[in-house]
């Protein structure tokens, strides 16, 4: 993943991705996914190209993209930790757990550690209420977490 992609490059690569989806019904979401895969986020320059390719307005593409939390405006860190903050997890100490890891990493929600290693995201229910408190690390689910287990996961992750 490159951190700085020139705008013209974003446009060209996005156009190529969009072209590959033009004959799909409802191509916008698949295109957004592939663009995020390509750049680690959906850059603004890409949205303009997508709007043009699909004959949509900029507003419409922005409306869809901004509806989904998982489409990022900027690239995430190398690892993404999502901690559940919904009711079931809250009822068994999820808030304290979350606060602990936030302090340990020294960042707020939606932020990335200065070394670019971890991005912290809240999530509202992972469907693991029976194993609360729960979290997701790089797409992998973890249940019945406590401080030690969570920091273990976080610390063990490679750089």
């Amino acid at each position, binding site marked *: 993943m490159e951190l700085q992609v020139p705008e013209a490059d974003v446009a060209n690569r996005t156009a190529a991705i969009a072209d590959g989806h033009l004959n799909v019904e409802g191509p916008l979401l698949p295109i957004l996914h592939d663009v995020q895969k390509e750049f680690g986020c959906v850059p*603004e320059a890409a*949205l*303009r190209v997508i*709007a043009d390719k699909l*004959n*949509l*307005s*900029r*507003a*419409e*593409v*922005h*409306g869809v993209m*901004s*509806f989904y*939390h998982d489409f990022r405006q900027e690239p995430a860190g190398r690892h993404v930790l999502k901690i559940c903050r919904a009711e079931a997890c809250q009822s068994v100490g999820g808030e304290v757990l979350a606060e602990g890891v936030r302090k340990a990493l020294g960042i707020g929600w939606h932020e990335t550690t200065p070394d670019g290693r971890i991005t912290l995201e809240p999530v509202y229910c992972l469907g693991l209420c029976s194993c609360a408190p729960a979290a997701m690390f790089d797409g992998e689910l973890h249940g019945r977490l406590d401080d030690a287990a969570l920091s273990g996961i976080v610390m063990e992750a490679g750089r």
Partner: protein
Amino acid sequence: MSLIKETDYGTPASASENKITLSIDGFEVTVPEGTSVMRAAMETGIQIPKLCATDMVDAFGSCRLCLVEIEGRRGTPSSCTTPAEDGMVVQTQTGRLKDIRRGVMELYISDHPLDCLTCAANGDCELQDMAGAVGLRDVRYGYDGGNHVKQRDGGGEVNARFMSKDESNPYFTYDPSKCIVCSRCVRACEEVQGTFALTIEGRGFGSRVSAGMHESFLNSECVSCGACVQACPTATLQEKSVIDIGQPEHSLVTTCAYCGVGCSFKAEMRGQELVRMVPYKDGKANHGHSCVKGRFAYGYASHKDRILNPMIRDKITDPWKEVSWEEALSFAANRLRAIQYEHGKESIGVITSSRCTNEETYLVQKLTRAVFLNNNTDTCARVCHSPTGYGLGQTFGTSAGTQDFDSVEQADVVLVIGANPTDGHPVFASRLKKRLRQGAKLIVVDPRRIDLVRTPHVSAAHHLALRPGTNVAVVTALAHVIVTEGLFDEDFIRTRCDWDEFQEYAEFVADSAHAPETVEALTGVPAAELRAAARLYARGGNGAIYYGLGVTEHSQGSTTVIGIANLAMLTGNIGRPGVGVNPLRGQNNVQGSCDMGSFPHELPGYRHVNNADVRDVFEKAWGVSISDEPGLRIPNMLDAAVEGTFRGLYCQGEDILQSDPDTKHVSAGLAAMDCVIVHDLFLNETANYAHVFLPGSTFLEKDGTFTNAERRINRVRKVMAPKNGYADWEVTQLLANAMGAGWSYTHPSQIMDEIAATTPSFANVSYRLLDEKGSVQWPCNDSTPVGSPVMHVDGFVRGKGRFIRTDYIATDEKTGPRFPLLLTTGRILSQYNVGAQTRRTENVVWHDEDVLEIHPHDAETRGVKEGDWVKLASRSGETSLKASLTDRVSPGVVYTTFHHPSTQANVITTDYSDWATNCPEYKVTAVQVSPSNGPTDWQEQYEEFSVRARRIEAAE
């Protein structure tokens, strides 16, 4: 007078013919099938509380305020999204519903500022009304939780959710703190306007209305049509004029004075001050929609440049002297009489205005016919749609479009030729785009890639990007395909047209010289694309043709109009809704000014002056004898002026110097006259050559009628006293009387009565009928007492439709080594015509100068970069303007607008014109483009001259 309140039924009307009956709160209601429960309730006067519903857009069901209980159904469905059914029993007010509504309102209000007393929408706020309607007394949630209202929270921390007001648009503000996220604006932008500039960004509590990609309104895709402002139930989207002035207290329905769509507006007033123009839902041309010009660009009416006192001067090199009306009129009358005495009665004439009312135009042509005793009258239609008059008159028998605008809702294939509706006729374009989104197909014939070719959710099936000047070849090639491939409608042709004439015509077009493959080299249109377009138009269902000045303003303009009429007759696309041939008229009253006998050879109602019976009607009414010799057209007047035989002109509401072709010839003609009377709001460019200036009145300051492109006669109503003292019709009457005419009209309705009495197609028109019906479409007489939405239903007006051969003859204006590019001209959304009005409004934020569109390839070979000054030279003259590089135009073609006098695009255009009507060939000029440092000598000299010519002597 009071404020006109229109009923909001909540959801759009259903067009179904099946009726159903249901019971709402114990009242029986019968409505068309498909009507929502909400609308059905409103039909009986039961207003169900609502916030996200309004009848300009489809139901959405998000506000949860309009819930009802229906017998036999579980829960509380929203009445806006629930279709009424036969036998349904609905309750709109129960204890349960009241509790739900109050709870919902509490949530809304907990995130809404409580500054009602100082809010601009105070008195016109649906949120306020609903709080009242549901009996909101307390907000249990308080106001301290997460909100979008406060810039800082109680502890002084910045509230990240707060967004500040967007004041970027010159006419309205967006205040996110007042937004209840009902999506009405977003839906209005999508469904009504069709621009899709707005969206809801984010989700849940974080949802906000966003213009473009979280941009300011001005930088977004917004075209400032005002539909969102109209839809907003709160002060979130609010006219700046209402913020400045306050709520209006009375209103009158009137007609917009910009383009030929003729939108109806409510002029909402506070005393004599215009607060805002609000599109009127019952307006049959616009059905409650508007564009940036009609909705907002009325500031010119009170602009400081407006001249309010008459002025005279002996020579055009003298400064102007302000004088009394009596002095100005007697000065003018004496000069005109002196000219006639010395040079004969044919030596003076008039130019009527397509901007003024029918009544005013009628009086101006009456002035020349009954007082000057000649037929020297012409109008600006000469330079726009005169070929329409000729072409449709020859083929169909009337000089007007065949349909109403509603007809587009039933079109299946729309052929747009040489018109740019999204810029020139925006409200019609919105209706067209709506139909295209429903699946109708679009064919665009235009040298430039206009917005309609590809705009969100609309794309043309075919864009025939022809070389300027080859319209006839393309239209004839379309006919060739239809005839040779047997796609014509034989039944229609046999019954409605002359079969022998058809056969002769078919033989002509079937010649391989007209085959798409043959003309491809000439027109630049790929043959396969043209064939596909012809097949689509002929066999795609209801085919409707809309065309504009790109058709008429050519040396073969009339031929193209005839070719278009041929296409419609060939395919049987005439005489029912959804089809037809429709000229998109440029100005508000071009249709009317032509109807009113503005042309030198025609008395009102398109009847030739050599027809003694018709002359007799007017001679009896006016008590004079009318000349049977057609008078001079505008170009002939100017030629005669240069020769010295035409010496006096009364020019009402038209700036011929800026709008007519070959500016140098126009100025030479004007400079040679002894008495030029300009009757206008502003010291326009023509006034630089005038001896008498009579101040004009705006459309807000007079009564009258405009006739739009669909032949609809709409009322114009006086909402304020004329700032100059007299409405334009009064000024013309004063001038006539100064010359001894003895006219005594006291109200424009008397003029309309005279028109009705003398002109058969207007026989039943009266102000009483217009007040009763809102508007009527001529012909309006005993056979069609309430007007005619569609013409030629059972037969053509002339009897049999007439096919006429359309030989392509290339214009004499040809490219060559010195002038290798073709210039074509057009207009832009925010500006109007020569810009006399729109340049004096905030619309200049969108377009403050004319630019030259040039293809990057042509630019590169000339060393021209984006934004560079370039010199644009033709055989007629040269001017300078800035370049804009775009592939909207093909290589070899350049394009500009003509809204700004400093550019003077018409210095470039030539005096070639239509063979039948002299309509100038604005759309094709051979030019060269070269880098330049700034304005040309001509521009600088002209600027200096016009400053000098506009001097007004200080009052003593």
